[in-house]
């Protein structure tokens, strides 16, 4: 493989607190008066290892090949931004080295160097130059940038009169027209409205298709999954995992989210209705999620397993109600509803398994009410909020765009087509 970025034993140590540092000259001079030799040595950077420090990155080792689009994920403080800053040469590593096989442009913030007093046109030139574009290049792409940003009418208006959305669009438009060999992007898709975000994602896909290498930090797991070919997981400054986005994202979610464990005993459950016979022994939520636990990715298959034990043999009928955290019922399933569901003979114990090929649930916390009965019209054991589980975001539509909570309680992958109308059918009065 053709490595374009090679990283070896990369580490970055930051000092914390003020122990080693003099913010004003007076303090530096005072310290120098008290302990001249030591202070001089310290100011010259020859001091021994300071005690108050943190390793933002430690012992990082990886190679990226040309044209690879790499997502970098991890919780806040895991070292993602530090890594990007080192690779874009803004700050220097404390240990190790890295090699870059091409021109790097970094987009750690949208609109770096924008000046509110300057017009849109002037800011395009300034920002382009700061991001490493040649003047000629900017001139050539100017109209395209303005069109992409949708600010044609305001090109000569000072930036301070732009809305924040317009500023963000302009900034991303400039950045999107960079042509570096390596593009380093930090969480910038969080700007702009929905339509614009989509446009940016599309533009980034174009960038990677042209054989550029993209490093992409985001908290938007769906974007990572749909854009990236591989993914790095950082944890406390170290490389915790590397693999396909799906694997690494699962692993990250597994390490981050804990709701209930995947199974729960129901023998002494506080949600059991009074006067019920305690037949249900345990409930287990099974999902294909390698995270384990009661974590379900949007759209992933889920199974609910309820174990029961009874003194009398019975035909078990199970009702499962999925409720939101606010207690609203989202859906109910019951094997009694199915005409063809038949049990051969009554049993004293066993497990009723309810498989969902997928659940149309939006991300959030949900709980299950369970109803177990022997007879269609008689529930014997009822438990409210028997178990809770978390639905986590996933790129269910395969577009990198997450369904939004505001759209409704469930998502649905409708099929679409356009029936083209004929002009004549539109019925022009003077068409004749």
């Amino acid at each position, binding site marked *: 493989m053709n490595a374009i970025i*090679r990283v070896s034993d990369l580490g970055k140590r930051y000092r914390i607190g003020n122990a080693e540092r003099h913010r*004003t*000259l007076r303090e530096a001079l005072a310290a120098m008066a008290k302990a001249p030799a030591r202070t001089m040595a310290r100011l010259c950077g020859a001091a021994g290892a300071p005690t108050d420090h943190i390793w933002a990155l430690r012992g990082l080792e990886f190679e990226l090949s040309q044209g690879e689009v790499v997502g970098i994920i991890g919780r806040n403080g895991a070292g993602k931004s530090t890594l990007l*800053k080192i690779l874009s040469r803004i700050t220097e*590593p404390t240990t190790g080295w*890295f090699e870059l096989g091409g021109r790097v442009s970094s987009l750690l913030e949208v609109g770096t160097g924008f000046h509110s007093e300057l017009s849109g046109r002037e800011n395009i030139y300034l920002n382009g*130059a700061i991001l490493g574009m040649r*003047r000629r290049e900017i001139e050539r792409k100017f109209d395209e940038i303005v069109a992409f940003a949708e600010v044609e009418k305001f090109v000569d208006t000072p930036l301070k009169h732009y809305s924040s959305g317009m500023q963000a669009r302009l900034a991303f438009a400039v950045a999107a027209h960079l042509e570096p060999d390596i593009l380093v992007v930090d969480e910038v898709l969080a700007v702009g409205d929905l339509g614009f975000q989509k446009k940016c994602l599309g533009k980034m896909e174009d960038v990677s298709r042209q054989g550029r290498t993209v490093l992409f930090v985001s908290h938007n797991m769906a974007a990572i999954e749909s854009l990236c070919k591989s993914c790095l997981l950082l944890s406390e400054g170290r490389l915790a995992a590397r693999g396909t986005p799906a694997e690494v994202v699962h692993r990250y979610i597994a390490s981050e989210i804990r709701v209930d464990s995947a199974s729960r005993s129901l023998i002494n459950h506080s949600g059991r209705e009074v006067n019920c016979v305690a037949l249900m022994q345990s409930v287990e939520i099974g999902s294909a999620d390698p995270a384990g636990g009661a974590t379900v990715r949007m759209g992933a298959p889920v199974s609910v397993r309820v174990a029961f034990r009874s003194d009398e043999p019975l035909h078990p009928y199970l009702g499962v109600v999925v409720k939101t955290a606010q207690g609203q019922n989202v859906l109910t399933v019951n094997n009694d509803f199915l005409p063809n569901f038949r049990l051969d003979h009554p049993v004293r114990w066993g497990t009723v398994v309810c498989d969902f090929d997928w659940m149309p649930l939006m991300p959030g916390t949900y709980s299950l009410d369970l109803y177990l009965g022997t007879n269609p019209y008689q529930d014997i054991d009822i438990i409210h909020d028997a178990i809770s589980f978390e639905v986590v975001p996933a790129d269910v539509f395969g577009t990198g765009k997450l369904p939004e909570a505001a759209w409704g309680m469930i998502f649905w992958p409708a099929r679409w087509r356009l029936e083209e109308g004929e002009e004549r059918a539109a019925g022009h009065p003077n068409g004749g």
Partner: protein
Amino acid sequence: MLRVSAGRRPATLEVRELWAYRELLYFLAWRDVKVRYKQTVLGAAWAIVQPVATMVVFTLFFGKLAGIPADGAPYPIFVYAGLLPWTFFANAVTASGDSLVANSSLITKVYFPRVLIPGAAVAAGLVDFAISAAVLLIMMPLYAAPMTARMLMAVPLLALTAMAALAFGMLIAALNVRYRDARYAVPFAIQLWMFLTPVIYPVSIVPSRWRWMLFLNPMSGLIQGYRSALLGRAFDLAGLAAAAVITVLMLAWSGFVFRRMERSFADVV
């Protein structure tokens, strides 16, 4: 492959890299010029008002009342010829000294040779210099001061002045990243410095015994050089040579210090 390693690196000048980024130098200077007089009523006229008003006051107090000699030239021309480069130098040092802190958002978000920031601040000062120089060209015939070929010397002198300003500006800017004292120290130091430089008085009033001390300040030789060029006098070659040598050494040293400190800018600023 470009390789970046931890640890010390040679503090050499990356000429090729600087050349590759020349357009950014231009754009940063252009921004400084564009933005400087935005939302002001007088706009670029400030570049004229400052030295002219100073000239009027100095002429009144130092020329007329205190009777400071002007080496036989009209005092207004004499003092303006000194104020013109001095104002450029003082503003350039102040602006570049503050430039890194003022552009901290760039330093923490984008890579480019950091020296471009103080460099652009100095370059932006050249525009003001050109505007106030035009005033001098208008004044000279009014005071019957002849224009001579010697005036062309002002060009290399300006280059040296810019280098001196960059040398001090870079050093102050680098220190300012770590120690914000520069904000208070610089305006004050610049004020004192003007009196240690023959701006309002001629070199000739300093006893010849002490003159060598005056010329340790590179601005002394340079300002004297501007005067010779503009007033058509013979050049003090020893003074100019001293100024040139000190300026170049100072620039080399401050460039070295800057390169050493630049690696930690993004972490400290």
